């Protein structure tokens, strides 16, 4: 598994970390984004994702983080604020099973770049990831 922590593969459009407690959702995101030319790394919950990001000498090279809200251990709200604080340059997208306007507003205020609701078409997800990457490159 160590080799995934390096620089993204040459012909990949970028590397995405997806955090969701449901294997089904991880599978869906991986399928959709792989088809769209991205490399996908999966984590089951916020705790595992944070561990992944911080393992090794350098933070894991990911271009975009996609995070669920309703998860055991470190939940999405906590994971998002952790990533915003520790890795402010990594765009975070929230992908959730239910639209909650209040929560969406709070998260967007925290710097989440997009609030996506499942089920989402492959093209829409890829477009959201692409625009998040473009924005973060411009900011860098």
């Amino acid at each position, binding site marked *: 598994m160590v080799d995934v922590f390096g620089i993204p593969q040459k012909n990949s459009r970028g590397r995405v970390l997806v955090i969701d*407690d*449901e294997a*089904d*959702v991880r*599978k*869906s*995101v991986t*399928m*959709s984004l792989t*088809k769209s030319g991205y490399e996908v790394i999966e984590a089951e919950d916020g705790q595992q994702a944070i561990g992944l990001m911080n393992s090794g000498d350098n933070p894991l090279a990911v271009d975009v983080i996609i995070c669920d*809200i*309703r*998860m*055991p*251990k470190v*939940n999405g709200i906590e994971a998002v604020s952790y990533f915003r604080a520790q890795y402010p340059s990594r765009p975070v997208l929230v992908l*959730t*099973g*239910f*639209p*909650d306007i209040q*929560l969406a507003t709070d998260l967007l205020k925290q710097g989440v770049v997009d609030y996506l*609701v*499942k*089920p*989402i*078409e*492959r093209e829409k997800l890829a477009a959201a990831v692409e625009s998040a990457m473009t924005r973060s490159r411009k900011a860098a």
Partner: protein
Amino acid sequence: MVSGDPINVILLGAGTGGTSLLELFARSPGVEVVGIADKNPDAPGLKRARELHIPASQDVAELLSRDGTGLIVDVTGDPAMAEFIARHNPRGIQVLGGMTARLLWNLVQHEAGIQAQLFQAAKLATIGTFTSGIAHDINNPLYLVMSLAEDMADESDPGVIRDHARDIVQAVRRIAAIVKGLTLYARVSSADDLVGVDLNGALDEALKMARYATVLNEIEVARDYVARPVVRGRPEEILQVCVNIVTNGVQAMNGRGALRLSTRREDGLVTATIADTGPGIPRDVLDKIFDPFFTTKEPGKGTGLGLHIARTIVKKYGGLIDVSSHEGRGTTFRLQFPSAG
């Protein structure tokens, strides 16, 4: 309000009307049913009376000869009964029969209908608070269905297509199971006879619903069940009791904590306990939690009817409900019913 000594009532007739009156009287303070009689040994009210520990008999004359009766309520519908009572009522105990009994019966039916509607409305309001959780649980497998189908559209490998098709079928089954659980809960309670309801199953089903009540999903559940803790009742009503109490626990912990569900069976009683590690209930609130419309929750999260309904149903089945709570440590609700197993 109730004043003075309780009215000791003898009920004649244990059919549908008698049974409803029996249940109403049994839960009314100030009214004591001292006996019930019906010529038909299989009349439903006789069975119900035994469950409520009320003397039941087939011998009307014997019942009338007992001391301490304040009122005879005749709902037999038998035109000869009035005369029979007159002959066996030397002390001239007041009799409520004929048209007045029918009037009473109509009022009771009306009240029961309104109550059933209120309970059903409360159930649907609770489903409203579950919306976000339900959406989450349905949208996840729906997402899988969508992405598998998208993938199949440009896939040519028959093996992959077959695997995807199989996964789609499984995801649809999961969605169907969620919808089935919801319809079971939302179903109008049947007016049919009471059946044996397994409390373990009711608690498990209730937990599935209660999980929908919070955004977070960090509740550790410990089950400690005895085999076949069966109570007599309508399954929808027993489920509603469990859903209301388990949901309160889940909401109190805000989706994070430990929930302990246990069942016991001893001395002809079945007990279920639901213990949470939430913030507990302050002393001054504790007295009010069973009051109708008492809630500390914001609109959309609670109606204040959950515990009132739970208690009404539990009492109807001759059971009891109590609570112990330690501020900062958690709350334990206990349900106890006569065993039917």
